[in-house]
């Protein structure tokens, strides 16, 4: 039986095929069940009908391009091995509910799955999450395109009970993975900073400095309207041709209130120290 299966799979699916599928033998998938055609059966099933009528009958489990099993059936094949540890929260995850199959993102017939490399992972993620791709093409962004930050550094696409499928228990904890200096606790806290970094920052990219969701000083004025300068309208007369306003130009509010994430200076109640 084994020799027949070996003959049937690799006799037709040869290295001369246009699609270079034999690279699978350079990774773990091509070595399942001892390798060879037995490895094919490991994922595609025994596929007896397909072996007898190769052009008319689909393999038991097929991932395309000619035949497709349902996303659930495709993923079940992968989960037989991968649910263990890494995919234990797949059931109920956002991608599972949206009927994304494992092969929608992952490739088994390659030497190295592009999804495990930070330099190539984002291309796949952003092919669906087009708003993130647009944001990541703006001037202020994380180094995702350069492969220094991967989507999976922050998000767990295989299932997470945190908001937005984040890897860490909270959004701020996710940010603190790389920005531990912002964790504090500070003596004088800036209230929104303590609960949600995304109140002021868009981690996927922005046209404003430091990935801010909107331009300062207007971002600050959304929440600060104290008497005198914080409450004043900042407009065109404050440009260099007019009255060069310190509250509008350069670092504006942050020229003085630079410790905006919190201050541990005894005189830092106004985030200036």
């Amino acid at each position, binding site marked *: 039986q084994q020799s027949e299966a070996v003959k049937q799979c690799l006799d037709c699916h040869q*290295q*001369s095929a246009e699609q*270079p599928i*034999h*690279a699978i033998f*350079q990774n*773990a998938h091509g070595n399942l069940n001892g390798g060879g055609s037995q490895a094919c059966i490991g994922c595609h099933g025994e596929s007896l009908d397909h072996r007898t009528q190769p052009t008319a009958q689909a393999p038991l489990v097929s991932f395309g391009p000619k035949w497709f099993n349902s996303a659930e059936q495709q993923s079940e094949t992968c989960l037989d091995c991968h649910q*263990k540890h890494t995919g*234990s929260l797949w*059931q*109920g995850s956002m991608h599972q509910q949206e009927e994304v199959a494992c092969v929608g993102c992952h490739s088994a017939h390659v030497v190295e799955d592009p999804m495990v490399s930070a330099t190539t992972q984002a291309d796949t993620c952003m092919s*669906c999450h*087009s708003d993130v791709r*647009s944001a990541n*093409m703006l*001037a202020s962004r994380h*180094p995702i395109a*350069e492969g*220094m930050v991967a989507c999976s550094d922050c998000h767990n696409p295989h299932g*997470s009970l*945190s908001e937005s499928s984040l890897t860490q*228990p909270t959004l701020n904890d996710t940010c*603190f993975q790389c920005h*531990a*200096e912002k964790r504090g*606790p500070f003596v004088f806290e800036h*209230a929104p900073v*303590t*609960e949600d970094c995304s109140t002021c920052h868009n981690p996927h990219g922005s*046209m*404003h400095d430091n990935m801010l969701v909107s*331009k300062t000083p*207007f971002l600050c004025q*959304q*929440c600060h*309207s104290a*008497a*005198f*300068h914080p*409450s*004043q*309208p900042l*407009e065109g007369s404050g*440009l*260099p041709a007019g009255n060069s306003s*310190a509250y*509008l*130009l*350069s*670092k504006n509010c942050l*020229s*003085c*209130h*630079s410790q905006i994430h919190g201050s*541990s*200076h*005894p005189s830092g*109640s106004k985030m*200036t*120290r």
Partner: protein
Amino acid sequence: QPDDPFAFYNLTDYRSVQTRQLVDYSGYFELGAGYISESNEQFGQYNGLDEDGVFAIGSGVWRNWQVEDYWFDYYSVKANDLGLDTLSLNFTIGAVQNFKLAVNWQQLRSRGPSSGKTPFRYEQGALTLPENWQAANNASELASLNQQEIDRRFSQVVQRDQLTIDFHHDIDEAWRLRSSVKHEKRDGTRATGAAFFANAQNGHSAILPAKLDSTTKTFEAGVGYYQPNYAADVSYLYSEFENDDYALRWQNPYSANLGPGVAYDTGIGQIATEPDNDMHQFRLTGFYQLNDQWRINADASYAVANQDTALLPYTSNLALPTTALPDRSFDGEVSTTTAKAQVIYRATNKLKFQAGYRYEDRDNDSPRWAWQSVTGDSWAPQDEKYQVYNAPHSRSLQHLQLEGSYRLPKSTRLSASYAYEEIDRYNHAVETTEEDIFELRVNSRPMVGLNVRAQLQYKDRGASTYQWDQSFYSLYDTALINEIPDSQRYSNHPRLSQHYLSNREQWHSQLHLGYVFNARWHMTFDGHYQDSDYDATELGLANEKLWHANLAANWYTHERLTQTFYVAFDRYEYELWGRAFTGGAEKNAFEIYPPLPQASDARRDWTIEPEDTSVTLGTSGEWISESKLLELDWQYQLTLSDSEHSNLANGGAADLSAIALPDINQDQHHVDVSALYHFRDDLSLKLNYQYFRYSTDDWAYANVGVGSIDKVLGSGQHNTNEQVHLVGLSVIYRLP
């Protein structure tokens, strides 16, 4: 001609070049050289290609699979960008279903603006001015008196050196041990603002080249147990941040008379940089599949973060008498508890229910102390009534979601959900916000090749009473508060609502269409629109709108030519209302003024409606010659962004201007073309050309020189405008 490196292919091999290269070789190394036409900021923001001139190209991979007769099955060594300041090295070794060890070293460099200038020199832990510095009372005079001293560029560059070691070991079919260690050193310079001041009107600020020097260490260990119908994973995470510079000291460049010991040359300011901190986190994750119908997923964590860095003195101005600090250090402690659960009930093959609960609690147990108020190093009142208090913030969130979904014919699934979210806050202007969230979703494949997803969501958030005077009461001393009239007991305007604490109605709609025309054409459309109305807000953020639309196409012309195209439109706009209120002299928080009539004068209202719009366009493709010896791939990205801050209006007060700000345009083009010629299976030549163009005209930096702003000694940083050409030529040799 096997010994000739430029010998032509053996075209008699029946396999494709790609297959031969993938299957027959254990890796490759790439060596070459490139040239960058000009130093830049945006193109080389993160990739190390920010300096003009020649650079070396060096990358490689060496891997082996099915290693026999050893305790491991595979290994790989990878190196990237060895000729640049951003580079990485990786070594991985492992055995299937046994263990995996990965050691990764990365040098990450982020380049910020480099057009700024500064007179400050970093000496003995402080930023000092040159000996021949001539002080003045404003930035304009400083700039003209000290042109030579100021004309020193400083680059905002931050480098992170990371060493990461990841290891996991499968003890048997059920148990896995894993651990991870990360050490990161961060070093560099960034621009920071700092000021001396008696009050806000008399602030004297300077943009400083602040040095960064810190280390973050992370250790994580966990053990997982897995069975087909249940699993549990317990982990411990330790994170430690150490800042080598606990303070930033700088010399006051101004001669302004803000009190004794403040002005140049004795005036020294001091900022507390981020304090050292550490965190211990324990986490438990798992699931239990009761049967084919019921499943429970769960995740819980508890973390404690501490900082106990020694407190700096109230001021470094020795001329100011200060009281004793409350303690030697701030014994800050924040604990974070989370508990999340998800119950899935598959009633039938078509009907599914799901319930989720999420609890997040940030409990700040840090002390609340009275601190002497030392205003801008120029005034230090001794009376206890002038003390200020820190206000540790705590927050507790509960989110409950119920969802049902039903399958219809034609691969259609309908889903409906309701969620309730409550956030309780402490030391905030609003104690409780409650939100109802309703959502409908449709996923369908109504015909062959067509995929449709649609979503409609409505959120309604209600806030408890807005305690507009809360920040005032929490900051100041009771004795001082009692002396201040009721009408003056606020920091923000009483009618201002902070948007993240406010009533809000939000609509969100989303649509995805995907259509496969034939084996060669595939198109998708994605769009979403969100409208947030802060319906009870009078002053502050009144509403927000967010648009996104993306059209993408994949075109497989034939097996040797593929193309993708996309075009996207994004817009974010909001409406912000304010009321300008002054009333004479700049307010000193500790002095008592008559009530401000302007605060209740609606004629002083103003509004601004910023709009950020961006259009992104991209295309990429690949072509392989018929002989398969030549490969071309190309990519073009265009981003056009526009930020408007127009429609400024006011309620009619004569002293308020309403001049619109100019638009800000950011244009970015990036062309990246590579040609790969395979001389032999194991030898290829690669030619890469990139063109990058970026320009912006942000009014915050346009025509703003070192002395342009009255009391801000700026850096003169100007807008980035660059045009970069890059050419790279390299040889790729594949390892047998």
